[in-house]
């Protein structure tokens, strides 16, 4: 089985999707001839042609607006927003158009669009290359939000997203494109190829990881940790260093959410710590916390804890003070275990 990093896995997924369906079309800034600033679309224009993989003007509103029109025609567009931090000019087209067109047209105009975008920090990207805006999109009726944490899932979830007949926001945690991240900023990144982890083994051909199905990354009896993207790995570090028998759940898809896996785990452990990199207030962690409280209240031994970024813009020099690393997670684990 070939080993791939997340970029190679995403590239492979796009290549498979382009080869499978003549309607799949990739557009975005620098995605064509050059192959993308992270190389996710490298070689695809040469292989599949300029009318199927092409560069666009720098207007995110236009990229998504055009993708909506292409979907109305019958294509299956996969636009790239170069950084999630730049997605806001496209918000109206995503929130008021793509998300609602199936509904407002009573099914006449479904919107099979997959918006790929690198997100998250930990790369010294400052406030314009580090944000985690998933909570903006999970709040919108009609959008699915998917965030992979490893190469196998990245390819399988992306192929499932492209095949899905509804708009999907597909956020790629760029901190772990090349290798998993233990949350300690000074640990050198070990490439996916050299990590002892089956999730770096990626089949060449087509397969899917279904949307809406979480993965239990580590089984444990003391506490449930809910995480996605980069934070799955950081949570793993915190559990290992704390000695707590944590059960780590990689949500993979925020909408639709795998509530059954969450419920089963929290009812078993009686404790829950939610970890995300995004800002705290009104973040997806708040939704998870509420769901756990509503559905598992009588099984809880301690208040649900949220471990998140702070409610500040993503700082540059103080990045690692902002980042919800192992120390912050371990403090939350200690707190829930004391009760």
């Amino acid at each position, binding site marked *: 089985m070939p080993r791939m990093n997340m970029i190679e896995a995403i590239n492979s997924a796009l290549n498979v999707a382009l080869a499978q369906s003549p309607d799949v*079309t990739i557009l975005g800034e620098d995605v064509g001839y050059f192959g993308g600033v992270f190389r996710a679309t490298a070689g695809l224009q040469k292989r599949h042609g300029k*009318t*199927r993989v092409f560069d*666009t*003007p720098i*207007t995110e*509103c*236009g990229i998504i*607006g*055009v*993708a*909506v*029109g*292409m979907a*109305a*025609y*019958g*294509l299956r*567009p996969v636009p790239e927003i170069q950084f999630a931090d730049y997605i806001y*000019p496209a918000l*109206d*087209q995503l929130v*008021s*158009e793509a998300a609602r*067109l*199936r*509904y*407002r*047209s*009573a*099914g*006449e*105009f*479904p919107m099979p669009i997959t918006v790929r975008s690198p997100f998250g920090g930990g790369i010294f990207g400052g406030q314009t290359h580090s944000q985690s805006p998933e909570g903006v999109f999970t709040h919108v*009726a*009609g959008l*699915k939000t998917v965030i992979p944490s490893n190469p196998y899932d990245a390819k399988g979830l992306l192929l499932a997203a492209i095949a*899905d*007949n*509804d708009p999907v926001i597909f956020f790629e945690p760029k901190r772990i494109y090349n290798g998993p991240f233990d949350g300690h900023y000074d640990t050198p990144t070990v490439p996916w190829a050299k990590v002892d982890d089956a999730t770096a083994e990626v089949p060449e051909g087509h397969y899917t990881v279904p949307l*809406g199905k979480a993965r239990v990354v580590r089984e444990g009896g003391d506490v449930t940790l809910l995480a996605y993207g980069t934070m799955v790995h950081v949570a793993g570090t915190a559990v290992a260093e704390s000695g707590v028998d944590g059960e780590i759940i990689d949500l993979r898809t925020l*909408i*639709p*959410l795998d*509530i059954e896996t969450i419920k089963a785990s929290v009812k078993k452990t009686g404790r829950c710590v939610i970890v995300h990199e995004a800002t705290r207030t009104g973040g997806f962690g708040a939704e998870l916390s509420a769901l756990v409280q509503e559905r598992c209240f009588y099984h809880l031994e301690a208040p649900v804890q949220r471990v998140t970024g702070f409610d500040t813009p993503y700082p540059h020099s103080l990045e690692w003070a902002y980042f919800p690393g192992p120390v912050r997670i371990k403090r939350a684990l200690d707190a829930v275990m004391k009760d």
Partner: protein
Amino acid sequence: MIKKNLQPLALHVPEPKQRPGDAPDFSDVVVPPAGKLARPDSATPAADLKEYPYALIRVLDDNAHAVGPWDPRLAPDTMRKLLKDMMLTRAFDDRMFRAQRQGKTSFYMKSLGEEATSCAPALALADDDMVFPSYRQQGILISRGWPIPDMMNQIFSNKADRLKGRQLPIMYSARAASFFSISGNLATQMPQAVGWAMASAAKGDTRIAAAWCGEGSTAEGDFHSACMFATVYRAPVILNIINNQWAISSFAGFAGGEETTFAARALGYGVAGLRVDGNDPLAVYAATAWAAERARTNHGPTIIEHFTYRSEGHSTSDDPGAYRAAQAGSAWPLGDPVERLKVHLIGLGEWNEARHSALADELMETVKAAQKQAEANGILGHGLHQPLETMFEDIFEDEPWHLREQAAQLLEEDAVRRVEGQH
């Protein structure tokens, strides 16, 4: 710190020339004679079309004679069809406006005086060319022969509304008529039309796209994005700007109309720009046909400014008497599109007053009969709506658990309401 030796700066806030209480005065509107403007080949490079965004394509002269090279030389039957479409649109508007005033629905928007800007392009395009309308293009659906009762079912949000009562009245969607779902958010349809046209071109299709927005909406970023994509990929698309002078209470000056024309926006993008007398149905037809031919032959997009006037309020929620001169619509120097085409056909010996008033009566009866049919399916707020659980359908292809739970909650609430007789 303000430097006292320099002239103080002054902020210009546009102000229309007349307000309520003033007599309407359009003496500053330049109306060039009909028939004088040359009609270039539709393949002419945009760089050689620089005068057109500042000109005004006019075919019908003051005597309603069709003159000059832009005369599309339509067959009398085609012109009668165009006249009938505009008259049916007007009758439809009239009845639906009244229906709103009678409390049968929440909202309506008339297109009085602007009918040519929808009906004539619809006729000049192929029926399967994709249109991305704004909210005042009911004339397109009518021209394409869409059933009137179906449009009314949507307006009444009743049990027969294909859109299941989800959209504000007049926000139609009719895929079978190649008519895109209307958004209330302004100008979003412009880049969408460009994307559709790009897809059509990428697939080697022969269909083109057309979009409509108001002059006020050209201020939206989406309009700029649309022009940008349209020029970069030479998309086979027509971007129509309906300059009806008013965006609710804001005159065109608040969209940049004091300094230039709206068609002139085409120049910066290297796109062909035409400016047409929007109350001259033959000129609108001719401009659309020119742009359609340009698009179909891979010569790229066209921006068309339709210079017209919104004779009524923005919508049933608006009171134009509160911000503009009264009777301005009847003073508009470009006249009325229905009247102009009628007089033209009469001049040709192809129409007469008796036939005209008979047709007007017949169309009103058609609309009334359609309304009766639609009202049998219910009017807004009188119980004949879609089943409650349909609120949760079509959000996604498959209903996820959280929506299933919420649908169940709603049905439980409804059971309580029925028992308690409450809301």
